[in-house]
């Protein structure tokens, strides 16, 4: 990400010193404090989400646009009963001058993060693909999520995972009827759209590691000693992101299930810390999940102002 952005040695030292003193460049007071998250759902559209991370002073740090589109395609040969799902993550010139406009290599961070989210949703069956089948072996829905970065100051992975899940939860695909293998697509006026089968909501959280010592010392750390080898920082800004040396990504859902746990290289950290952080991630993720559900709920109510009047259901207290 933004490999060409050169950080001067003094600035680098300054940021690292700040971190060592539990201070952040953008004014946050703790290494584990996250920036405020705003979820905006575009009215009158389905699956069109804007996400914002706000700094303490109210300015927007990172802004992401997630958009779901669906089309009918032929399924893969090996899986004739399942729809397909893709995520397209791209940085472009809008995110900042240091982002290349054209396709970057497969070895880039964006590619890797995009894949993480894709497999987070696919491998854990968060999206029910079988529900997307129209005619087995011939026609299935292809759901694709496009993530556009409109403003970038770190926090891509978390935001993208939140954005994708919110968009998928919110999206409605057109209803179809199949008669004699002929597929008719109904517009939203004819028939109400069909929600996607989202079975659970995995959210990713990225713990960024900053070494406090030389690589050699960290690798050779005595197992028993209680030495602190590294700083763990949540929700890095772009500059911090470029200075980090290793990361640890966990994706969880509310049901206390790990959906993904990734530590792709970087400086090693002790196993007990990984366990500790995994548990620490749970409340954060629960909170985020609730935020998503609330945003969708509010939007739902706005759309169907009179639904409760028409409903025959009894009121129940739902937590």
């Amino acid at each position, binding site marked *: 990400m933004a490999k060409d952005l050169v950080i001067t040695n003094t600035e680098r030292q300054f940021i690292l010193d700040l971190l060592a003193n539990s201070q952040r460049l953008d004014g946050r007071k703790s290494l584990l404090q996250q920036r405020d998250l705003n979820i905006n759902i575009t009215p009158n559209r389905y699956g069109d989400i804007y996400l914002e991370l706000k700094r303490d002073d109210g300015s927007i740090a990172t802004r992401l646009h997630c958009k779901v589109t669906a089309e009918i395609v032929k399924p893969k040969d090996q899986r004739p009963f399942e729809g397909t799902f893709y995520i397209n993550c791209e940085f472009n010139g809008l995110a900042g001058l240091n982002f290349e406009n054209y396709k970057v290599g497969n070895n880039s961070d964006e590619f890797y993060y995009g894949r993480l989210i894709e497999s987070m949703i696919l491998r854990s069956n968060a999206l029910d693909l079988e529900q997307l089948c129209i005619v087995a072996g011939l026609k299935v829905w292809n759901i694709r999520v496009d993530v556009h970065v409109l403003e970038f100051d770190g926090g891509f992975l978390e935001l993208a995972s939140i954005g994708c899940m919110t968009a998928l939860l919110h999206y409605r695909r057109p209803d179809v009827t199949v008669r004699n293998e002929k597929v008719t697509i109904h517009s939203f006026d004819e028939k109400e759209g069909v929600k996607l089968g989202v079975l659970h909501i995995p959210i990713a959280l990225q713990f960024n590691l900053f070494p406090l010592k030389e690589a*050699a*010392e960290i690798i*050779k750390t005595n197992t028993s000693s209680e030495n602190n080898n590294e700083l763990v920082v949540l929700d890095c800004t772009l500059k911090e992101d470029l200075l980090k040396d290793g990361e640890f990504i966990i994706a969880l859902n509310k049901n206390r299930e790990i959906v993904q746990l990734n530590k792709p290289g970087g400086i090693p950290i002790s196993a007990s810390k990984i366990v500790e952080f995994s548990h620490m991630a749970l409340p954060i993720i629960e909170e985020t999940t609730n935020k998503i559900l609330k945003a969708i709920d509010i939007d739902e109510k706005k759309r169907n102002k009179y639904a409760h009047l028409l409903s025959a259901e009894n009121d129940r207290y739902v937590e």
Partner: protein
Amino acid sequence: MSSNTKILTVIKHIDNNVNITDNLKNFNANVNEDYDFSSSDEEDVNMEEKDSDISDDEDELENKKLINQIISPGDLVIKSSEYMKGHNTYTTQEHFEKSNTTEDGNTKSGEEELNIYSSTLGVLSKINKLISVTNINKNLYQAEIGDHIIGQIVEVTSAKKWKLNINGNNLATLQLSSINLPGGLLRRKNEQDELNMKQLLKVGDLINCEVQGVHASGNDINLHTRSLKYGKLRNGALVKVKMGLIQRKKTHTHFFNNNSIKIILGCNGFIWVSYERAPIDSVTKDKGSESIKTDITRIEQDTSFEIYSDINDPNIDLKTRILISKYVIIIKILAFNNLVINEQRINSVYELILSYNRNSGGMPNNSGNSKDVLFLLNDPEVMKDIGYQLVQGEKMRG
């Protein structure tokens, strides 16, 4: 052409399809071994003394001993602040809080200790206070000033430089100003020379040269050929061997077989075996001073364009060619058996080959034109055998 030449030798490795349930390494297998290096030094000496004659059992014991000497990456070599780290090691500092605090508690003096770890597979070498680990699998050349090496030109750059592959992790540089220009030792270089660069030394040419300088942690290497013993190589063939098989010596140029064969053992693992025109008066035994003398008289004629010519000496006869091939194979045999290559060993393998030839019966022995022995030697079994005989012979002599 003898009839019993083996057309194709195939070494078969038949894997008797491993049964998964057999051969399982048990989880609790106790493969723990202690590698205690600080204490093993003395024991080694004792062991060596004991092992004067070797039986099979003790052979194995010796192997074990040897294995214990090998340090693998990440192993702690020494724990002390008195030593310095050398090649292939890295250090960490450990803050020690000495627990022998006195009752008042304020003498809690923090002490620093240096841990030296190995970063490669090798054996320990200790020179005074310098701790380093010698690589077992050395395959990259690390330049030192004054090394006599052979390089191959891979690029002629526009900036009056040649880039040479010298088997290191970077290419070395040979500047136009550090070669002998044609037409006299002390001539200043002019623009004509720059234009002629490509004619003097081409891509692919092998250059016999010396390391002039090493900068920036061993990665900027400058070479020079400003002596008549250096320059373009002709009349022979190159063998590349593994780096570790050549050791730095006083001289790297050796003459064999009545001075008709010259072998240059480049420090970087490149070995040049070539025909050497016999010196005009071959009376003297002192090669060094003689060659210098002739050098001086020949300076004028030799530093013409001829020293950069691509044409080999037309007088190399079959006998010499066979000799060159033979020495090439000798070097290969030594390399094959992981034996360090030096003048003495080359000679003794040469002897062995002569006798091997005779022993192996059925082989017509006309030593003057013995091509047959050459293709016999291509058999890895034979190579191994000769290597074994050599080692045995050396052990006998001690």
